[in-house]
């Protein structure tokens, strides 16, 4: 239709003609493509075929389909069709998308899939009918939430976001936004010099001002923490875990314990100052981003003492405590390789700065011992542990994190060697798990002696395949 309009009323420019050809080709392509789309149902699987020249045939066992989503927009409804998405337990994309399906066919397919689900899939309704006793595993009092706010520093994020938004939507020229605080400061300094204060007073006043700004940000963080997690409670009800809290909106998530995947423990510098940690979990189910995350369990403990985290690990997963795990170090020369690139960077930076600014540039050489020191610190803490049920990994120096996964929840194991690894007889081991944050942290153990990495690879492969 737009093509016809263009043809009739266009001024005959060559690019208009090209656009018409493109549009017609695109329409033809999707038409031809839809002819190539077929699906077939055999006794226990769905077979989907796509493509004309490049043909793909996909076999999806019914047992793997965890979630069925139906969607119809106005056009769909106009033509009496619908879109069907079949999602499995993991991955970031649905297993199959049927863009245009007759409603009756879609209903028949959904009914068939529902019927083929075995009793183990019908978990929620049956188990909640029994209502087992609730057991509170963790409750956060206000004092802990204050600590959480102080540690998390969400206020800084919010202020930065607000500043960015203001910058974006300011009707004046953007620089005026910056000019406001600059004018303030200039004004203040004007007054300061007018009154002939001593140097000490000026420095002291500046420090006080900075301190006040810092305190205001932290206060905002505390307020946000209380709003978000007020009355946070983690409780167990039979084989389900539920957690939630909040002052204005109460967010609650729950999951069956056997659906928990990787556990993450975070211990930043501030955490350690307060002798606290935080505990998060990934939960299986639903393609990430495809369905809403609101009912999903995420925090097991936004903040808890080390002892509380150990107790939770024991109560929920019967896992050993973080200190009781048999931590094994990386390759003895791991720190050298860790320090190498930053050392090279600092040397070049220093050379460049010296060339530009003279001897002052040599100051950048301080970066060299710093990178060695921090690499040694990192290699000193970074360890992995393997017992008969869990794989654990910890890394960091000042800020630390731990990750813990049950061996029978591993999805794939990979042994990787870069050219540098091969030169130093090292290798790294990475594992893949379900429903992890694609941008988040995973278990990827670097700088292992190659023989040890091979042994670890063999054990992990055996365990995740269910060979014991």
């Amino acid at each position, binding site marked *: 239709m737009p093509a016809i309009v263009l043809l009739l009323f266009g001024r005959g420019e060559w690019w208009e003609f090209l656009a018409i050809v493109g549009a017609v080709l695109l329409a033809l392509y999707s038409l031809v493509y839809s*002819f*190539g789309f*077929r699906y077939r149902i055999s006794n*226990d*699987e769905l077979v989907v*075929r796509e493509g*004309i*020249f*490049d*043909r*793909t*045939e*996909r*076999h*999806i*066992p*019914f*047992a*793997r389909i*965890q979630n069925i989503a139906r969607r119809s927009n106005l056009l769909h409804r106009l033509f009496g069709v619908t879109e069907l998405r079949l999602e*499995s*337990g*993991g*991955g*970031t994309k649905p*297993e199959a998308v049927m863009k245009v399906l007759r409603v009756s066919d879609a209903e028949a397919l959904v009914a068939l899939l529902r019927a083929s689900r*075995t009793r*183990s*899939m019908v978990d929620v309704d049956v188990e909640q009918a029994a209502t087992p006793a609730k057991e509170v595993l963790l409750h956060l009092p206000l004092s802990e939430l204050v600590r959480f706010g102080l540690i998390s520093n969400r206020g800084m994020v919010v202020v930065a976001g607000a500043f960015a938004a203001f910058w974006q939507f300011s009707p004046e020229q953007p620089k005026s936004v910056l000019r406001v605080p600059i004018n303030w400061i200039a004004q203040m300094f004007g007054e300061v010099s007018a009154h002939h204060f001593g140097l000490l007073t000026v420095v002291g006043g500046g420090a006080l001002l900075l301190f006040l700004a810092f305190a205001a940000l932290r206060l905002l963080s505390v307020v946000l923490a209380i709003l978000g997690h007020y009355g946070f409670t983690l409780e167990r009800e039979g084989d389900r875990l539920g957690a939630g809290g909040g002052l204005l909106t109460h967010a609650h998530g729950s999951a069956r314990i056997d*659906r928990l995947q990787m556990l993450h423990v975070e211990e930043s510098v501030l955490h350690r100052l307060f002798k606290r940690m935080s505990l998060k979990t990934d939960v*299986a*189910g639903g393609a*990430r981003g495809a369905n809403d995350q609101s009912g999903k369990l995420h925090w097991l403990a936004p903040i808890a003492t080390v002892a509380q985290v150990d107790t939770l690990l024991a109560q929920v997963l019967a896992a050993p405590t973080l200190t009781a795990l048999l931590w094994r170090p990386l390759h003895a020369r791991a720190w050298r390789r860790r320090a190498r690139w930053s050392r090279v960077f600092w040397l070049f930076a220093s050379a460049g700065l010296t060339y530009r600014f003279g001897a002052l540039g040599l100051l950048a050489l301080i970066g060299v011992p710093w990178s060695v020191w921090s690499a040694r610190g990192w290699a000193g803490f970074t360890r992995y542990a393997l017992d008969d049920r869990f794989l654990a990994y910890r890394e960091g120096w000042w800020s630390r994190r731990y990750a813990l996964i049950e061996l029978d*929840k*591993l*999805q*794939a*194991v*990979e*042994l*990787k*060697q*870069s*050219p540098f690894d*091969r030169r130093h007889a090292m290798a790294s081991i*990475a594992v*893949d*798990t*379900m*429903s*992890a*944050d*694609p941008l988040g942290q*995973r278990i990827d153990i670097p700088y292992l002696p190659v023989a040890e990495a091979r042994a670890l*690879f063999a054990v992990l*492969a055996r365990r*995740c*395949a*269910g*060979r014991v």
Partner: protein
Amino acid sequence: MSEITATPMQMTPLAPGQLPLHPRMHFVWALNHSLWFSLLLAAVAVPLLVRFTGMPILAALLLALTAGVCLGWTYAGRYAAHYSAVYLADGVLIRRGVWWRSELFVPRARIQHTEINQGPLDRRWNMAGVRIHAAGTHLESIPLAGVPLAVAVQLRDALLDRRTHADGA
């Protein structure tokens, strides 16, 4: 449109062991890498040659193409030498990479679904690619390079585990 299946005679269960690589796959890799190397050289080396040696553009392009094909062919040889896919009783083990090498094991129980893919050349040569979809996050789709069609069909049937909850969800 015909379905991707092998003849009934070939439908015996797949025995564990190294998966054969279709003889044409080496050619496909070589073609692929030659193209990329040629494009890279054309984008980087040709402007430099023309600017600093005064070589005519056409000659520089021809040189880039020749060098790209040579590099691509050599790289494809190295790639094929380091590539192997092994079907085990309980999963698939894939080794690949020339400089950055990786060994990847995906258990059979974790495979969500499988895909067989055939382009026009694949159909002509009776070759197919198999793509394994696992439930993980970073390695959710793992390609197995060109195998003979009959093996691809056998592999697809051998890899699907149809029990519920076998995937650790």
